[in-house]
């Protein structure tokens, strides 16, 4: 298990680099490595922009599947309207409104727990091809 704390902007680069490296070691192909590092970049940036700080946990295990599981946790303001945040093109910050829905498309599975005022926890999984 690897933990990357997100406190400043360059930690986003660290998080996506670490995730990519672990994905490569696990045997993911280049396109999947790129999907994983891009999804991590989007979600780690969300932490930085919305919550200021938080953490990215990267695990080479997502039982019952063989794959990588990455969890993004922050104690920020939370997401008021999850459905809206998952809508393409919607953004309350400075990205292109691709963050959440884009990361979901790049992953095989995404879980999101958020309560306004209580932070956000997002987990994505990418499975190794059988």
């Amino acid at each position, binding site marked *: 298990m690897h933990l990357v704390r997100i406190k400043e902007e360059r930690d986003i680069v660290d998080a*996506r680099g670490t995730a990519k490296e672990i994905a490569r070691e696990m045997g993911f192909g280049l396109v999947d490595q790129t999907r994983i590092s891009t999804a991590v970049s989007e979600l780690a940036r969300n932490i930085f922009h919305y919550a200021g700080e938080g953490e990215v946990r990267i695990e080479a295990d997502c039982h019952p599947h063989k794959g990588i599981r990455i969890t993004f946790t922050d104690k920020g303001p939370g997401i008021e309207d999850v459905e809206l945040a998952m809508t393409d093109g919607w953004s309350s910050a400075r*990205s292109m409104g691709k963050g959440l829905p*884009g990361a979901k498309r790049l992953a095989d599975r995404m879980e999101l727990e958020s309560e306004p005022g209580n932070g956000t926890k997002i987990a994505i999984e990418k499975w190794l091809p059988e």
Partner: protein
Amino acid sequence: MIESNSIPILKLKEFLIVSIQTDLHDRMAEQLQYDILNKISETAAKGVLIDISALEMVDSFIGRTLADTAKMASTLDSDIVIVGMKPAVAITLVELGLSLGKVHTALNLDEGYEFLKNLIDEEMQLNGENPTQETEVKKPDASGSD
């Protein structure tokens, strides 16, 4: 960590050439945008080639910054061509749902250069100026623009 290490922008005739050889963090991408626009304004460059062949991913922030830079450059009468995008990056960009808008792209630096040259010659012909081409004389079509 070299915080202030900026990405070099080279001038070659009427063009600028930028090769991004490092993993871009957000502020660096914004700084590069500013530097490119400044350099266009300083040199009156007609076109900019941005080589991203070393970029291992382009997320929504970098993508937007590149697309915005192209729009801004065009208001300064300069065209931007993004060259060398890795196939895995292209796949991921589309899946992410990101469109680079009207940004010109080319497979590599050679093709990007040819593309820019042709584009600029066409623009000059439309304006009734002499094309920049030296080696190859293109016959202007006098019968109209369609």
